[in-house]
């Protein structure tokens, strides 16, 4: 009896420690269980604006590729309409609106300019002005920007008469994306023979690695002038064509 009375303080202390450890472990368990179901959605306004810019560019590139390959001009507007709708419903923390205006001033029409000339120059281009508006609890911004997607083609031709009607023809082809040299995905060269465009039987293309190519071929061309045509598809799938008249060497 004396021993149990003497130890009762220690028992109290041990009980307190046990209670403390129970409380602590219960709290830790609650925190761990909470962690499993925790999934926070984060979206930075700056990141979202970059995503909108990037996507707008992709839409214009795809639309110009479609139109330059024979699709209707209305594709650009319909794709942008869909893009604006998707963007409008995407940002969850406020109201956002993406408006667009297709460039209509010359030489553009409905945001598109395709010119495949006979003077050695061809271009397939799309130009759209955007205004992105975002309003939420912390941000109220208007972000105007434009997307200009232009694939241009410059060709120069020269020829040398080998014998009779047989001519050695060289065509220098330069591909540009937004004015900067760019690689091509496909290149096809043709020459004019009695009002028909023919593909040379055998021609070589030299790639200089800077968006410049030289196509060389030999063909029987009876006419005094040598007209050539280059058809190029760039890495983005945009088609462009240009014709030129060769100069004798």
């Amino acid at each position, binding site marked *: 009896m004396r021993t149990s009375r003497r130890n009762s303080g220690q028992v109290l202390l041990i009980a307190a420690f046990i209670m403390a450890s129970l409380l602590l472990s219960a709290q830790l368990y609650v925190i761990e269980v909470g962690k499993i179901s925790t999934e926070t959605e984060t979206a930075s306004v700056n990141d979202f604006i970059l995503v909108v810019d990037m996507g707008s560019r*992709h839409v214009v590139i795809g639309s110009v590729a479609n139109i330059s390959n024979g699709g209707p001009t209305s594709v650009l507007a319909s794709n942008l309409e869909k893009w604006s709708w998707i963007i409008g419903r995407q940002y969850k923390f406020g109201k956002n609106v993406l408006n667009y205006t297709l460039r209509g001033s010359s030489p553009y029409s409905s945001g598109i300019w395709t010119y495949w000339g006979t003077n050695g120059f061809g271009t397939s281009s799309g130009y759209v002005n955007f205004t992105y508006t975002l309003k939420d609890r912390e941000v109220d911004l208007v972000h105007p920007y434009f997307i200009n997607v232009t694939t241009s083609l410059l060709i120069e031709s020269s020829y040398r008469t080998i014998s009779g009607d047989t001519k050695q023809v060289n065509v220098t082809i330069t591909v540009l994306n937004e004015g900067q040299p760019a690689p091509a995905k496909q290149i096809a060269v043709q020459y004019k023979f009695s009002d028909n465009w023919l593909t040379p039987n055998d021609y070589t293309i030299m790639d200089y690695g800077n968006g410049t190519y030289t196509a060389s071929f030999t063909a029987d061309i009876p006419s005094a002038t040598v007209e050539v045509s280059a058809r190029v598809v760039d890495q983005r799938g945009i088609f462009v064509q240009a014709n030129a008249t060769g100069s004798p060497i």
Partner: protein
Amino acid sequence: MFNRKGQIRIIEAFFSIAVVFSVLLISVTFPSQPDLTGQTQLANLGMQALMQLDGNGTLGNLILQENWTAIKTCLDVLLPLGVSYNLTVYDESMLQINSQAIQNSNLQGHEAVSVEHVCATQSTNTEFFILRLQLAWAQ
């Protein structure tokens, strides 16, 4: 002698109460909020990876090709070691289209953060996808 024993009891009782209260105090002040700094870092890493992949239209092309393995390989390269992820690709109607999981580990039991990315393809038939990337620090 008797009085001294009583004083010791009182001290022991006070000590016991102090232990219990200090534990209660720790419990209350224990960080029950998620680690927002770590989550913001994760979200930034995820967005950077997706934007880098989408910059030249690669992401859209890979989705069109349904090349989920290539997307996973790219994310493995773009995201640092120690980050677990799970990517889900939806079409514009929010129907999941990735037929296989694009993830490097299971995120169950992790404190995860989720970022969304809208992707437009550069193809002649423009298509739109919504990507949800869930990220967590690997344990």
